[in-house]
């Protein structure tokens, strides 16, 4: 209820503010073309911080002044004023992870109309005419990778396999689950028992894991499609005394998850490569600014981390600070 | 005449620019039912509020047994043995009759449990049943929420609650409003019983025949002052209405 109310009020305020024919962005100033701004989906999340690290590094190397402006929550009503605020300064390019594939179209179009190059990172709009380029993780490939990794961990042993998803209709986690389902069928020893939604609540994830254990005592693997489901699944398995017996494959590699991998609560992590997303975003933005050819869609690969090879792949761990 | 139980003299009460009481006086003796009557806006409710501790008069004195008292809260009035039955009942409909009777004055168990706030429900129920019996209040069931009782039964519980705790005086603000004939008779019976126990009952009512039927005396309020006093046995409805409307007034009131 609260979010709806806030959204309604904000929309109303926005409509009021935009009334009268003019546009907030019509400042007419020249701005600073040698400046690049990153607008992540939410502040202080290791995934976006790691992206920021790649962004800062690459943009500074290319001779750009950098700025990062993140909303406090993953919410279009909070991201919109940041976009309009950035618009006033007219940087050369903006890298943004839109928090809503429709609601952010308006503000982002204002950026484009003001001559700013827009590059989408991580998430994208439904409307593909706004951004010059979109760099995101191939979530379906991540799901397939999760199934392959799980199969490797399990070996030849037979058993049931569960997917814990967040909320129905979340495009990224649905893609991960779909990729997993497609790949797991290639392994006849693994019996796919379907996916369960958890409302992104760890306690529901824990409950669904133990319920599945009751129904399918031969459970041998769980793929948790994001951080909260992973934490809930680890808790459920711990309570059932099945930690390490049931192989848990998580998604993302924030410090707590890496610690759980090291400690044995999780057997594998499918890590995105946010730093590369940030760097690639800068490359594409520079190309767009310099009038060189731009690649419209880029999907970065994900990597699997297991306890055995994690230290060698520590560059994929997400970071709390650069 | 004996010293009055309650003697209020020259009470004045302003609400902003409105002068609700302009030197109103009021007297009640032990063992009598006094009816307080007056037209709407005469100041009856304000007077009762001042005498039951809900409001404080701007000036004037209130004597209880000849001693000046300060009634600065309903709790203070109750400590002096003065209880009130409110027009809007003020009962908790989800609680049973015993719980309502002891509301705010719950009995606790002895010993450690009592110190922890544990209630003695059995004793409260026993005493409540006894009190209802003494007052002639008949309830079909003392273990249901009183919201499930009829209007008259609820009213009887509200009246019983005040009467049980009062030791000297009970104010009853329209206790029979919205009641049927039978239920009204029951409440009036309770009023007579309370008087016979030696308490003073102050009855506020618009129903003149009822006033004359149950009251021993009548005091009439008009425009914030007492304008007449009558002996109920020798008064007519016409006289009361005359005093209320200002057609008739007594010099010594």
């Amino acid at each position, binding site marked *: 209820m*609260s979010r709806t109310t806030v959204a309604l009020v904000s929309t109303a305020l926005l409509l009021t503010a935009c009334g009268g024919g003019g546009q907030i962005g019509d400042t007419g100033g020249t701005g600073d073309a040698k400046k690049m701004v990153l607008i992540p989906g939410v*502040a*202080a*999340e*290791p995934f976006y911080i790691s992206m920021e690290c790649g962004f800062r590094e690459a943009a500074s190397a290319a001779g750009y002044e950098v700025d990062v402006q993140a909303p*406090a929550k993953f919410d279009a009503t909070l991201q919109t004023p940041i976009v309009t605020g950035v618009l006033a300064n007219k940087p050369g390019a903006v890298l943004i992870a839109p928090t809503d594939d429709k609601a952010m179209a308006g503000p982002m179009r204002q950026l484009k109309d003001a001559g700013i190059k827009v590059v989408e990172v991580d998430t994208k709009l439904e409307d593909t005419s706004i951004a010059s380029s979109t760099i995101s993780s191939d979530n379906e490939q991540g799901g397939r990778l999760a199934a392959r990794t799980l199969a490797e961990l399990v070996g030849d042993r037979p058993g049931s396999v569960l997917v814990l998803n967040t909320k*129905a209709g979340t495009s990224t986690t649905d893609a991960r689950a779909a990729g997993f389902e497609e790949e797991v069928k290639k392994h006849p020893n693994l019996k796919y*028992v*379907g996916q*369960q*939604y958890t*409302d*992104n*609540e*760890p*306690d529901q994830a824990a*409950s*669904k894991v*133990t*319920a*599945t254990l*009751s*129904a399918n005592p031969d459970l041998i693997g769980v793929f948790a499609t994001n*951080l*909260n489901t992973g*934490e*809930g699944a*680890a*808790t*459920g398995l*711990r*309570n*059932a005394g099945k930690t390490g017996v049931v192989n848990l494959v998580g998604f993302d590699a*924030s*410090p*707590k998850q890496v*610690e759980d991998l090291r400690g044995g609560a999780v057997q594998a992590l499918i890590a995105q490569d946010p730093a590369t997303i940030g760097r690639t975003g800068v490359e594409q933005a520079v190309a767009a600014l310099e009038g060189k050819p731009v690649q419209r869609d880029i999907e970065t690969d994900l990597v699997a981390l297991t306890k055995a090879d994690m230290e060698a792949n520590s560059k994929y761990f997400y970071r709390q600070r650069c | 005449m004996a010293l009055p139980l309650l003697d209020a003299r020259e009470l004045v009460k302003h609400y902003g620019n409105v002068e609700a009481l302009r030197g109103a006086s009021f007297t009640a003796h032990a063992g009598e039912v006094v009816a307080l009557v007056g037209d709407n806006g005469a100041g009856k409710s304000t007077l009762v509020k001042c005498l039951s501790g809900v409001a404080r008069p701007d000036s004037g004195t209130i004597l209880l047994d000849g001693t000046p008292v300060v009634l600065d809260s*309903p709790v203070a009035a109750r400590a002096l043995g003065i209880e*009130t039955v409110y027009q809007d*009942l*003020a*009962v*908790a*409909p*989800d*609680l049973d009759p015993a*719980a309502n009777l002891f*509301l*705010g*004055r*719950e009995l606790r168990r002895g010993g450690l449990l009592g110190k922890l*706030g*544990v*209630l003695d429900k059995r004793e409260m129920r026993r005493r409540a049943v006894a009190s209802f019996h003494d007052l002639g209040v008949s309830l079909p*069931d003392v*273990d249901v929420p009183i*919201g*499930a*009782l*009829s209007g008259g039964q609820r009213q009887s519980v509200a009246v019983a609650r005040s009467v049980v705790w009062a030791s000297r005086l009970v104010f009853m603000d329209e206790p029979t409003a919205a009641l049927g004939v039978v239920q009204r008779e029951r409440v009036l019976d309770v009023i007579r019983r309370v008087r016979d126990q030696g308490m003073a009952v102050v009855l506020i009512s618009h129903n003149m025949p009822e006033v004359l039927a149950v009251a021993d005396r009548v005091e009439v309020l008009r425009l914030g002052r007492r304008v007449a006093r009558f002996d109920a046995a020798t008064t007519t409805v016409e006289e009361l209405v005359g005093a209320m409307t200002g057609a008739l007034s007594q010099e010594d009131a």
Partner: protein
Amino acid sequence: MTPRTGLRRRLVGANTLWIAVVLLVLIAVFGALRPDAVLTAFTLQTTLVETSVLLVLSVGMTYVIITAGIDLSVGSVLVFSGVTSAMTMNALHDGNATTAGWGVVLVGLLVALASGAAWGLVNGLLIARTGIPPLIVTLGSFGAALGAGQLISNGSNVAGVPDVLSDTLGTGTWFGVPNLVLLAAAVTAVGALVLGTTAFGRHTYAIGSNEEAARRAGIPVTRHLVRVYLLAGVLAGLAGFMALAYFRVASITGHDTDNLNAIAAVVLGGTSLFGGAGSVVGTVLGVFIPAVLRKGFVIVGVNVYWQPIAVALVLVAAVWLDQSRRRARDKR
């Protein structure tokens, strides 16, 4: 009339009995479908553990709703308390409390309780003193407590929960009963006794039934309301600490709907949103019905989309039952 018939009639008249019947029917149906998986010690144990945190939240919520109030902030207060507690424990042990001892854990517990108490006090004072509706006050603290938690944790989950805490309270058992369940059961038992047998409980009902009557009867209504919201806050703080032991992390985003789950449990348990009536026993049943439904559906393999629909149907039916019962009574 003998006490025995009174008791029987009370049982039949109470919503609690029907809710208990619903719960038993659910268990019987799931048990008949998959006896090997449902009627096991394992399923019982995990179901109890998984409902412990919500149960503690719901006990506090029961008091609040009986006063005809509401507390939307409990989930956020849980998060806030978990974050402050975990961060304090980490700070006391060189930034990572994983190996910290009982002294640090005790401080963590006190911080969690104090954090919850602080928000409860803010809620209670605003509601009781200013007359702002509880819905609005706690909607505010719902956002503010979560925001404050994000602010001090920098928006990310806080790890580093002491092993001694998570190994004992989180996953430890006592004669086969999980410690987390014992703690929740103790809180529930005390909550039920205080509500059912003490003056504090009686006044809680009276205020919810008719606040003005309670005030005129000399009950200190303002003070009492502050205490009720304080209680809900303290229990949310305790729930935050329990969640910390259970999940081994203070999760920021994982408790968005805890408030609604607690309200649903209380209402399912026959406590009236209009105040004045309800019980902790009912709340216990109300906590278990959605939990059993969710678990049962997974075990018997029902389509996942049916789960929220079924829970919603039971909730709406329970409230409808409550309202029609009241209407029937008020008609007289």
